[in-house]
């Protein structure tokens, strides 16, 4: 009687080191330009080539501009990072979706979208939000650059086996409450270190009812409570999402794979090291007010009193006054995008709330699709036309203002309602103030100019 996690992990152990880590085989390895160059350099210094080139896929995403992608990148340091990824991919025979390629995008958006992310896989990337891929029922987690080098050299990493935690969310989510609200609620309840050392499986009716995109949002944020990764057991929703995707098996091979994937589900009676349960009815529309993703409240609530000196400093940075409602706070910027909320469903939701309204003149809005394919779908569905009519401009895909490595920086002191994953000090630019929220809440902020419950407009 094994858990989903144990079934996948145990099937990938090549060797075990006594009083040490497991040697874990990696099915799929994703690379972006920030955390891989030193790994490729290390490989060269050791005189090694990539061991299994067919298992690594590369896409530049962090440094790329979100406009004029047909032109050379203006920042020479960013350009060099992006060029280095291309050179490393070419030298080692790796698939590379470079800037301008029809499949380019945020690596965590394109993996599932292209059917490269499959149930039962072990998946790693030098990026903490690799947990996103767990949504299909894979063991997916972020690694450091030394570990990237291990995967390139041997298709394995050495990794201590994490403990397991199941988070069950019972009942149905209330209308207007999204996967992002659910994630922000769980993180606020458990704290930013509440799941450190654990691999989380999300379960329960509220999770089962989520679309694959929603499950990706939820799994994506697992790292924000310290979890090694997050996952959802494969079910009919998973199978239908994968069916027909570019790199997925076809025909009878797909049906056989689907049977195998469904059998991965956690067995009844399987034991987790920790179990946590929540009631979906308790969860409202959420926003953050502080400088870590655990500092979150209902959009209708007031800014909590600081519990200590460090809380007080956070509120000072955020320019929030304890006891005042967060709704009504003036918003300068809105960012829709990132590996958390840059998928087609997120753009549909944003457009739905915006419909019949216009961008508030004081709000600068950056709408950044997670991938070229998402961008194409936005155009195909006519969402771009609706958004442009409402005074918005669609940018080109990339990580963008989630971590502001390109020019998309929120100016110091300005407040941004962001669908991304981190509200750390300076994350969106030095001195920037970030309020994390769902696409619907971001849309409500964009049209009203203040933090607003999207259900009330």
């Amino acid at each position: 009687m094994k858990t989903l996690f144990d079934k996948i992990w145990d099937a990938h152990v090549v060797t075990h080191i006594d009083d040490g880590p497991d040697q874990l085989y990696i099915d799929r390895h994703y690379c972006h330009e920030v955390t891989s160059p030193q790994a490729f350099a290390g490989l060269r210094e050791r005189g090694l080539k990539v061991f299994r080139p067919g298992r690594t896929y590369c896409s530049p995403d962090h440094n790329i501009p979100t406009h004029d992608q047909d032109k050379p990148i203006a920042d020479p340091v960013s350009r060099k990072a992006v060029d280095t990824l291309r050179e490393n991919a070419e030298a080692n025979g790796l698939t590379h979706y470079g800037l301008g390629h029809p499949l380019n995008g945020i690596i965590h958006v394109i993996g599932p979208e292209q059917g490269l992310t499959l149930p039962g896989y072990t998946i790693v990337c030098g990026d903490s939000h690799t947990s996103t891929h767990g949504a299909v029922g894979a063991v997916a987690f972020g690694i450091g650059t030394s570990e990237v080098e291990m995967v390139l050299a041997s298709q394995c990493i050495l990794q201590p086996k994490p403990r397991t935690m199941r988070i069950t969310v019972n009942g149905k989510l209330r209308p207007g409450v999204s996967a992002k609200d659910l994630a922000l609620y769980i993180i606020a309840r458990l704290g930013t270190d509440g799941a450190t050392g654990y691999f989380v499986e999300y379960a329960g009716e509220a999770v089962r009812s989520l679309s694959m995109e929603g499950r990706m949002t939820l799994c994506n944020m697992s790292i924000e409570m310290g979890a090694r990764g997050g996952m959802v057991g494969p079910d009919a929703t998973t199978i239908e999402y994968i069916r027909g995707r570019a790199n997925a098996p076809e025909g009878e091979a797909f049906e056989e794979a689907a049977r195998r994937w469904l059998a991965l589900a956690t067995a009844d009676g399987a034991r987790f090291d920790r179990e946590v349960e929540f009631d979906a009815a308790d969860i409202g529309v959420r926003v953050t007010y502080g400088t870590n993703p655990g500092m979150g409240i209902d959009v209708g609530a007031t800014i909590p009193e600081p519990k200590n000196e460090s809380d007080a400093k956070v509120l000072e940075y955020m320019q929030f006054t304890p006891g005042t409602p967060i709704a009504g706070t003036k918003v300068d910027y809105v960012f829709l995008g990132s590996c958390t909320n840059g998928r087609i469903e997120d753009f549909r939701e944003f457009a739905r709330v915006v419909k019949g309204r216009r961008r508030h003149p004081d709000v600068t809005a950056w709408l950044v699709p997670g991938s070229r394919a998402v961008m194409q779908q936005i155009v195909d569905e006519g969402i771009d036309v609706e958004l442009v009519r409402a005074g918005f401009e669609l940018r080109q895909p990339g990580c963008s203002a989630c971590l502001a490595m390109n020019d998309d920086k929120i100016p110091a002191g300005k407040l941004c309602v962001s669908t991304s994953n981190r509200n750390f000090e300076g994350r969106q630019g030095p001195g920037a103030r970030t309020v994390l929220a769902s696409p619907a809440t971001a849309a409500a902020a964009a049209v009203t100019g203040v933090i607003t419950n999207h259900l009330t407009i």
Partner: protein
Amino acid sequence: MARPKFGTIISRCVPLPIENIDTDQIIPARFLKSTTREGFGQNLFRDWRYDADGNLRPDFALNDPRYGGCILVAGKNFGCGSSREHAAWAIADYGFRVVISTFFADIHRNNELNSFVLPVVVSEVFLAELFDSIDADPAVEVRVDLPSQTVTNLTTGRSEKFEINSYKKQCLMEGLDDIEYLMAHREDIEQYENGNKL
């Protein structure tokens, strides 16, 4: 990257009594563009060390001449957030060899070990007392002995055993990294691939 062999370290400390120090604070994203491992130390805690005009903030511990040494002491949940190993490289490049906290984020902890920086997990009592000791006398020294896995506050004499698996301990003591292990197991990997069912 330099691979110092670990034995016993006796050093003064730099105190950062702040919880949940994320890797965006340790090294902000805008300094991650370099394609080499060197030079990240100059931007360690960049936005806490320098103001917007690039002037040193005198009240930050790294800029306070009373503190020094190769041991960084930080509040719980050190290194949460991004997986960027640049954070561990910045810590190592600045000259730290040990980080003491009550709790480390998983990915960052692995990154420190792989960058030959030793993360030492101590009890809340040990950490609180150490911060008090440093507060009373910034010259207080701490001894970190990897072979016996003990950490000692040399002012109060409080000593604790810390956890590290025997594999990683051996790597740090002998300056070995994981790739050497993996390369020696290529045959096991190929054998595994031949029998892989998933």
